[in-house]
Structure formats: C-alpha cells, structure tokens
C-alpha cells in the first residue's frame, strides 16, 4: 500500500469572483503534491478567475487558500498565462521572457547571475524551444509562445505549475505536442500541475484528476472516471432535468 500524497494546497469554503460578484462559491478542494489536475469548464465558467485567485492575483471573496510549506518554505508557483494576454509592443527575445522566471530568486537591483542564465536556457531547451532563444517573443506562433511561457514557468523552479489554457488557439498537432510536454514534465520530474482547459478529451487523456466547473460549482474526481462518456452524459442529463 502506498502512502497518500501530501496535500500541497487546500481551498476551504472558497468563493471567487470579480469585484463583489461571485463566479464560483464555497469551493473546498485539495491538491496533492505530484498530481496532474485538469481544471475543466466552458468559457466564463470561472477557470481563470479560480487560477488567478490561487496565484494571489485576485483576492478571494470568502474562504481560505492554504499552501503546505515545502522544505520549510512557502511553495514556489510557476504560472503560464494565455499567450494572447502579453503585449507585443515589448521588444523581448524568448530568452529574455524566460529570464523573467528567475526574478523571484534575484534581489531587486541585482544582476542575474550566469548560473541563473544557464538555468533559463536549460528550461527553454527542456520545452523544445531552445532554437527560439534569440527570436522575438511577439513574432512567434501561438504554440511556440506557449512553449516559451512554460519554460518561463519552469525557470521559477516551481513546486506547483499553473497553466491557463495552454492549448487555446493552437492547431491540433501543436496542441498534442504541448500536452505531451506537460505529461513528460509530470512523469519525469513529478511536477504538480494544474491545467485550466475547456478541452474535455484533452483533460480526460492527460490529467490524473479533474475539476469540472459547471454553473458556479465544482465537480471533482479521477479524470478517467469523472470524464468518462457515461458520467459526462449523466451530469449533463441531470442538469437538463
């Protein structure tokens, strides 16, 4: 019998939303270390709002978010936003974008050391984006940008990797390769991953656990069970009636 995985993050009675308007209410969820969780939901279901609240970008309207310390310190979060959210006016190479990931460890006003630069380069190569290093980030394709943003999240040396729609607006073959990369990161390095997506088959195929946001509530379970065709049918049927 294997010991249950340590909980990395707990949400207790959490209500999230914008301003005073709740989008999701009274969520209580646990995220075990080393699991790959898919956060599923239609557009506007509250995936990004929940993700941003977990990251500290939005304040919760009610409830608690509690991280379990890792090696006596607060866990480091790696965040890959939707690539369209970044302004192309900045003349940044892919390498410079990835280098931002190490800023959490570099004190204000200090230079980024050679070892941190090497680490950023390693992260780019790890995501298959090594050859994009010198190219301007704003000129990359959607899939290439996503690889660079995943590399940037990895550069933070995260204990918890949160990705917002990493396959949105990307063609099928590139989508497959991004999802394969995430699976590889999870299997080889036991990264704890939470991936927001509206793509039900992708979550079912790649994630271990799934959280399905529907009508302000969260359904949770093993991805293979919760998102099995008969369960999905039952949930949708139940809601219809």
């Amino acid at each position, binding site marked *: 019998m294997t010991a249950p995985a340590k909980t990395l993050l707990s949400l207790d009675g959490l209500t999230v939303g914008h301003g005073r308007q709740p989008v999701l209410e009274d969520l209580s969820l646990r995220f075990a270390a080393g699991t790959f969780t898919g956060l599923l939901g239609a557009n506007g279901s509250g995936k990004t709002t929940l993700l941003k609240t977990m990251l500290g970008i939005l304040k919760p309207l009610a409830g608690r978010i509690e991280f379990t310390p890792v090696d006596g310190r607060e866990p480091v979060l790696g965040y890959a936003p939707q690539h369209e959210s970044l302004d192309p006016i*900045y003349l940044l190479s892919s390498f410079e974008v990835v280098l931002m990931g190490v800023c959490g460890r*570099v004190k204000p006003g200090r230079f980024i050391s050679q070892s941190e630069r090497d680490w950023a380069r390693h992260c780019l190569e790890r995501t298959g984006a090594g050859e994009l290093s010198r190219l301007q980030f704003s000129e990359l394709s959607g899939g290439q940008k996503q690889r660079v943003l995943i590399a940037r999240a990895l550069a933070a040396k995260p204990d918890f990797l949160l990705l917002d729609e990493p396959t949105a607006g990307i063609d099928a073959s590139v989508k497959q390769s991004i999802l394969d990369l995430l699976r590889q990161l999870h299997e080889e390095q036991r990264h704890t991953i939470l991936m927001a997506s509206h793509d039900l088959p992708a979550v079912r195929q790649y994630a271990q656990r799934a959280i399905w946001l529907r009508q302000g509530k969260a359904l949770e379970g093993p991805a293979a069970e919760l998102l099995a065709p008969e369960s999905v049918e039952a949930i949708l049927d139940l809601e219809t009636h």
Partner: protein
Amino acid sequence: METLREILDPHFLLRNSVYISVVLGLTCPLVGLCLVVRRLVFMGVALPQISSCGVAFAFALQGWGLLPHAHQRAGEQVLALLGSTVFTLGAILLFSLQARRRRGSLEASVGAAYVLAGAWSILLLVKNPIGEHGLLDLLKGEIIAVSSFELAVTAGVFAAVAATLAVFQKEFLLVSFDPEMAVSLKKNVLGWDTFLLLLVGLTISMAVLSVGPLVTFGFLLLPPLTARLLARNMRQFALLAAGLGGVTALAGFCLACRLDLPVGATDVALLGGVYGVGFVVNRIVR
C-alpha cells in the same frame, strides 16, 4: 557647423539652455519609453499640462495673497516646483488608483484632466499679473533663462532618475510586461508601479519647469515612438530613444539659433521630422 561651434562655446550666453535641452533630451525619452510600452501615451500628454496647471495654481495662490511673495528667482522656482510636483503626483496617484480598480474609462479621465488643466492654466494665468509673464514663456516652451543652479538641480535629478531606471530595469520590466506573473513571484507590483510612476511624475515636473509642457511632451513621446520603429530589443530601444532625444535637442537648438525660431517649437518639429524618417526606414527595412 559654425552655429554648433558657437553654441558649444563655454562663453555662449545661452549655454545653460543648451545643456538643459540636451539633458532633458537624453532623459525624458527614457521615462517616456515606460509610458509608451505601458500604453499610457495619453498620460504623457496630460501630465505635462497638469504640471503646468500646478505651476499656475501655485502662482495664483501667491497672487491672491495666500502665499508670501518670493522676491528672488530661486524662491519662484521652489514655488513652481512645489505646484508642479503636487499636481503631477496627485494626478498620477488618482490615475493609477482608477487603473487598478478598473472603474470607468481611464482614457476618458486622462482626456478630461488634460482639457481642464489646459483651461485652468489659462484662467489662473489671466487673473494673475504677477506670474503671467514667466508662465507664458513657460507655456510657449522658451528655453532661455536657465540659471546655473536650475541646471545643476535638473541635471542632478535627471541623472538620478536615469540611474534608478537602469538599476531597477529588471523589476520595472517584469511588472510592466506581466504584472500577474510578477504577483505569482511574490513581487510587490503596486509598490514597483508606484515607484515607477513617481519617477515619471518627478521627471515631468522638473521638465515642465525647465522647458514647458509642449517640449516635455515632445521629448517624452516622440523619441521612444521613433526608436520603437528601429530597435530590435529593449536595450536598443532605450539607447536609441535617449540618443535621438539628445541629438535632436542639440540640433534643434542650433536650428533655432540659426533661423531665429523659438527653441521649444523647433525641437518638437524636428522630433516630428525624425519620426517621419524613422517611419520610412522602418517601411523599407522590414
């Protein structure tokens, strides 16, 4: 060439004006670059206007007898700096609070502030014969009477601003490019944003006092917009913007002396010409 040699002569009567133009031309684009990449160009237009309204207000208080009269130029400068700084920083604070709370249209507020500041500057000016003469020169952008003290203070402040921007470029870039990522890395985004905007406000206040709102706006925005067309990375962007600003300031002064034109307006017109050249080069090269 002869004019250039003449204005660079240490005995040239308006040498302080030349130096302050070049210092301003080198520094304002660095600050303006921050406004351009953060898509706050409108703020770059409105803040110099608000700053000059602050100067007009400070002199109006003096005219109404609410503040003691400053009999020396240094006293007037302090008064003007206070008015300019209080108004600029106050406006920045209000704009950034509105942007953060995402209530209403920031563009509409900035636009309204610009128009109102312009109108009030004129109203305060016509009702204040004490400050009218100097302020009119300021609003026209006449860079003529610059004392060595003013030059030293302005150059010192601008050098400090440029050094601060260089030292904390990593932090300013992160919170500007991806504030959400910065939050996830436990950076104090509000603190860094406020710090950056204070630097912007301080630069604009000092620049408006030296050269007026028109020239300040010109140097804040036109060199970065031109540099954006030609640069390939952020370092080139910053160096090119500052370089274009400095060189244009010097060339503008030469041209104004040679053709007997107002320096400020000549500088801005020349910056417009440089932008046009940059635009054409960009179209040809890319």
